[in-house]
């Protein structure tokens, strides 16, 4: 069968009915002239369901009619692995992509590896395994066909799910040999395609959930509805450092639709904490009822007394503490090449600058939520989670139910950005369900979500550079501090490119919960580092791109130290590419142009950004972005990821912050926490991928970190004003 065929027939029908009705049903002109895209061009695929499915392994099922189902193992948070991972299997399996149905796999630690959405690593780690999966199934299908046709395996070829024997002109569909193929032993390893023969990888394939998304189909955790399901919300302490002292729920309990108000603790005696168990409020109050609105109303009527457990923190103190530490104490030395102190003493020019950035909330558009149905001996969970395997480990200890009896299914997620690595909301849902003895969907309000983060830590870094009389970089020092943890990667650029180089790290503990936020540490340090390089290039009297390239040349031909965590040639490659594409000219100063380049998640990104100033307000006109992430599996969607990272990075550099007063987050919804909006995003983004045939690397994160510096450098070029403290548009006095 052919899904396309069905689609064309439906399209025809639409056109006819439109004309016959004498009008245009949806108000568009079906007689459109050639220059307009055809209408109703994209209709949801209609796959004819087979009578029998053959399960080939954990990943692939083949129908007797040739339709193929490919499981997507990893959680989908918007990074579009649900399209890309099955594309890799389909490529090696050699099937027609139009004939593929993609399904989200549940958590299954036996069938799948690393079912995690994090670190931009799904494709990089999945690459070889997914290719082998497809190639092995193709191998047994061919072996089965060889038997049926009674010809040697070598005489058979495959194309789009058809196995052909050229000499006799005979052919068999995968669906016709699948039943036999499952009886053939799958070899340990089989050859894979030469990348130049790829027909699916490298082609833009549309998001497999695209039709469902634009039609508002129930895809997300928040959309889950099950028989007998109750709605739950939680109330957590108002300030970091506080816990529940006493609860008066008499009023709330009597309100319409309310079933119960309970206290739950996700860290009971004897539990077994997992990596993902980061949470400042182990004990919370849960309100359970029939409908969301009723529960929301009752939540307001809870009367809870809180008590202080650890001292409350203030943003105003945070930045003073960091500044004092860096200025007055020696940090933990993470790397020291040459003799930095002597080099500074000998330097002709010294430039020293300090950069900072506040805590950030993740603010996935879909707030935290989870469905759980826990019975005496079983737990069924369904919802948005980036780390289902850790959640399973936590639940085993907290619920006292063995792993075999816990099932976790991932819904499509309305954003992740690291927030859903930390699945305490899943544990909360399970505990509520267990206590209520009923299926429950837990929903966080936006306020609950924003004020109980695993926030991006607050950071500060001081850079110091020494230049000789020729403007060569002879000394470089980085002092990085964070609440908590230093943001500095000691072995990344410009380590290896400077003879005298030292990194010192400082850590300030906090009772505010923090965690990974899209491109952890890089999301701050890239902006600081690349802004500073711009400034020292200027002090050296050099073009900022040439200045960086000189350093890469040094790191390539005569590297300092052994452990340099980047490939100077690939790094320089993206910078040269963006230089050419943007038509960068060293004489174009003052036009509002900035450059930046960074390496993270195993990928290289360089950006040139054009800005126009309206008074003090920058408007980004255009971003040129060169990316080296090896083979690009799905170019259209890859470009979407790069664009998204750029918009997200510009927005957070300009507008966003979480601040604290006596431990209380001062922002709790989008009226006080500003995210970038449509009118503020760049008019145009051009993306250029390096075509080098190398195995694929990260894509969801790498375009975000450098863009803040491209923006800051462009703003300086346009206005003469440098920005050191994020968010750039906020009065820094508010941040202390």
């Amino acid at each position, binding site marked *: 069968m052919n899904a396309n065929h069905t689609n064309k027939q439906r399209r025809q029908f639409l056109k006819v009915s439109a004309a016959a009705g004498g009008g245009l049903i949806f*108000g*568009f002109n079906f007689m459109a002239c050639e220059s307009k895209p055809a209408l109703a061009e994209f209709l949801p695929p209609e796959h004819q369901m087979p009578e029998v499915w053959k399960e080939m392994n954990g990943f692939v099922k083949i129908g007797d009619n040739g339709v193929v189902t490919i499981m997507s193992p990893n959680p989908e948070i918007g990074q579009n692995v649900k399209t890309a991972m099955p594309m890799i299997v389909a490529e090696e399996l050699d099937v027609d992509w139009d004939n593929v149905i993609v399904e989200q796999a549940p958590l299954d630690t036996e069938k799948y590896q690393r079912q995690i959405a994090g670190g931009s690593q799904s494709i990089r780690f999945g690459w070889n395994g997914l290719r082998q999966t497809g190639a092995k199934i193709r191998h047994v299908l061919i072996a089965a066909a060889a038997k049926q046709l009674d010809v040697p395996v070598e005489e058979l070829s495959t194309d789009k799910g058809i196995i052909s024997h050229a000499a006799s002109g005979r052919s068999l569909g995968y669906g016709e040999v699948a039943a036999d193929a499952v009886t053939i032993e799958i070899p340990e390893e089989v050859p894979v395609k030469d990348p130049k023969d790829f027909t699916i990888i490298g082609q833009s394939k549309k998001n497999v959930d695209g039709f469902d998304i634009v039609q508002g189909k129930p895809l997300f955790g928040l959309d889950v509805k099950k028989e007998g399901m109750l709605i739950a919300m939680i109330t957590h302490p108002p300030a970091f450092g506080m816990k529940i002292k006493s609860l008066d729920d008499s009023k709330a309990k009597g309100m319409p639709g309310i079933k119960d108000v309970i206290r739950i603790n996700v860290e009971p005696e004897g539990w077994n904490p997992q990596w993902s168990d980061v949470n400042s409020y182990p004990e919370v109050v849960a309100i359970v009822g029939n409908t969301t*609105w009723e529960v929301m109303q009752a939540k307001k009527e809870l009367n809870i007394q809180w008590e202080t457990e650890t001292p409350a923190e203030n943003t105003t103190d945070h930045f003073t503490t960091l500044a004092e530490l860096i200025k007055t104490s020696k940090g933990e030395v993470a790397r020291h090449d040459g003799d930095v102190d002597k080099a500074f003493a000998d330097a002709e020019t010294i430039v020293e600058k300090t950069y900072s950035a506040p805590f950030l909330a993740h603010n996935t558009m879909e707030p935290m939520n989870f469905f759980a149905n826990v019975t005496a001996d079983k737990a069924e969970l369904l919802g948005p989670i980036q780390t289902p395997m850790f959640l399973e480990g936590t639940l085993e200890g907290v619920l006292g139910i063995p792993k075999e009896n816990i099932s976790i299914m991932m819904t499509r997620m309305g954003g992740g950005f690291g927030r859903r690595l930390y699945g305490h909301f899943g544990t909360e849902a399970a505990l509520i369900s267990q206590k209520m003895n009923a299926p429950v969907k837990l929903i966080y309000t*936006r306020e609950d979500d924003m004020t109980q983060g695993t926030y991006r830590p607050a950071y500060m870094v001081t850079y110091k550079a020494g230049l000789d009389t020729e403007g060569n970089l002879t000394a470089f020092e980085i002092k990085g501090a964070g609440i908590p943890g230093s943001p500095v990667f000691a072995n990344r650029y410009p380590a290896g490119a400077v003879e005298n180089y030292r990194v010192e790290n400082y850590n300030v503990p906090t009772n505010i919960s923090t965690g990974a936020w899209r491109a952890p540490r890089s999301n701050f340090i890239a902006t600081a580092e690349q802004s500073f390089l711009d400034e020292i290039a200027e002090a050296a009297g050099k073009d900022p791109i040439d200045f960086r390239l000189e350093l890469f040349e040094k790191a390539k031909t005569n590297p300092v130290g052994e452990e340099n965590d980047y490939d100077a040639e690939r790094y320089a490659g993206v910078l040269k590419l963006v230089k050419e594409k943007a038509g960068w000219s060293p004489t174009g100063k003052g036009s509002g142009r900035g450059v930046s380049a960074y390496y993270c998640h195993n990928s290289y990104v360089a950006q040139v950004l054009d800005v126009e100033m309206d008074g003090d307000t920058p408007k980004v006109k255009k971003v040129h972005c060169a990316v080296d992430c090896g083979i690009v599996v799905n170019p259209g969607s890859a470009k979407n990821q790069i664009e998204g990272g750029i918009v997200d990075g510009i927005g957070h550099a300009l507008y966003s912050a979480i601040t604290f007063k006596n431990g209380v987050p001062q922002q709790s919804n989008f009226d006080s926490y500003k995210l970038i909006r449509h009118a503020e995003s760049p008019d145009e983004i051009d993306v250029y991928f390096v075509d080098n045939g190398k195995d694929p690397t990260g894509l969801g994160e790498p375009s975000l970190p450098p863009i803040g510096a491209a923006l800051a450098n462009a703003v300086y070029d346009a206005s003469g004003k440098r920005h050191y403290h994020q968010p750039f548009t906020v009065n820094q006095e508010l941040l202390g």
Partner: protein
Amino acid sequence: MAKLSLSVNGNSVTVDVDPSTPILWVLRDHLELVGTKYGCGIAQCGACTIHLNGNAVRSCSVPVSSAEGKEITTIEGLSDDASHPVQQAWIAHDVPQCGYCQAGQIMTASALLKDNPSPSDSEISQAMNGNICRCGTYTRIHAAVKTAAKNS
């Protein structure tokens, strides 16, 4: 509680709810129309956008009582098969990343194009400014609105 008669996507329905319940939660909890999303609850993000008598409104902040006698259209009512020109343009440009904000974006865009079939760039930016996309798909949304405008 009160019995209210509503018209949703061309169908007459009766619900028995507290009349102050926002339309959003009536759609999601009582009518099982979950395409309309919750993002902020305070008319700041646009995830809950629906059409009320053809105008884009934030359903999280409009009590259901004020919808009586008016026509509610949700994302589910825009077309039966994703064939509305705005949905088509969204597919053509492969707009969604996580997809959570997109129903609201599409409802805002379709209301805009009904009133203003060929909006300028700045009219598009203004109209779409109330809809937040944390994934940062704005440039694609912008291009998709223009494509939809050409095809409307």
